[in-house]
């Protein structure tokens, strides 16, 4: 057996080990992104999340102005801190529409009373159907929708103070 062939198993082992070390050092990204960017918002018509606000349908999102659709829930902890940032965005003229996932009207009302209410409309998505139709995999998540109702950007996780500039830029691009 030639020398090269004799060392082949060792070489294979080293390559495998290098691969393992590399994956340990830089773990694979497990966030699930929606593949619907650039496509129109799927057709949906959600009932109102609370009695004092309008319901949310697809046609409410194609009004000529960009919208920020925020998928949230009263039982979602990161959503609490996100509301403050959403209110900053609202103060800057951003139209924010809420989709409350697996939630009850009384819980949503309680959540808004306690943390603030940045939403124009709130749709109630009791079986996560619109969430799944949008390709969203958790709460909170937000989508920037342009004036024609096309999905322009997906933000996974809570929008923090540091993301405000990014979100405003994406909304500006969507104008």
């Amino acid at each position, binding site marked *: 057996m030639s020398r090269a062939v004799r060392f082949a198993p060792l070489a294979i082992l080293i390559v495998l080990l290098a691969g393992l070390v590399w994956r340990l050092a830089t773990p694979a990204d497990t966030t*699930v992104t929606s593949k*619907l960017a650039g496509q129109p918002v799927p057709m949906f018509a959600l009932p109102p999340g609370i009695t004092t606000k309008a319901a949310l349908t697809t046609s409410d999102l194609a009004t000529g102005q960009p919208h920020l659709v925020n998928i949230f829930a009263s039982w979602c902890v990161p959503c609490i801190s996100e509301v403050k940032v959403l209110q900053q965005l609202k103060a800057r003229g951003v139209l924010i529409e809420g989709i409350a*996932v697996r939630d009850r009207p009384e819980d949503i009302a309680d959540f808004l009373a306690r943390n603030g209410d940045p939403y124009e409309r709130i749709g109630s998505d009791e*079986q*996560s159907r619109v969430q*799944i139709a949008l390709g969203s995999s958790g709460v909170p998540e937000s989508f920037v929708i342009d004036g024609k109702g096309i999905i322009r950007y997906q933000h996974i996780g809570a929008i923090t103070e540091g993301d405000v500039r990014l979100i405003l830029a994406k909304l500006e691009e969507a104008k």
Partner: protein
Amino acid sequence: MRCNSSSPSMRGLSKRKTIWVPAFAGMTLILLSPAAFADSNLPPAYWSDRQLPDPRQEAQAQALMDELRCLVCQGQSIADSNAEIAGDMRDLVRRRIAAGERPAAIRAWLIQRYGSWISYKPTAEPAAWPLWLAPLALLAVGAFLVRRRIRMGRRV
């Protein structure tokens, strides 16, 4: 995240009890609070844990659910997962199959949203070609090595 529940380790309780006991008590409180589990207060969706009355449709739904990946506990199928969103996806699959939709159409609808990642069924797209070709390549290498071995054996 939503699929793992963990409890604080009790190691270290003996040493420096004064620091650890309140710390663990606090952690336990946080872990036991309903919000930390990030589950909603709503009951599971109707068809999430209920079989369809038509056995043929239920078999179709079951086969599809076994091949769809849970979004939050990525090593499990939605048939195996206890996550709420997996329950909602089972409800969606059963509802659509009961409405007469073909499993392939439901799978395609989900792939359109989440990418081929959501389906466990291997595809024939170019990215998967190495996987299909690898066994053939390995067999060829094996055959080559065996052939050489036999020839060398004859010489000795």
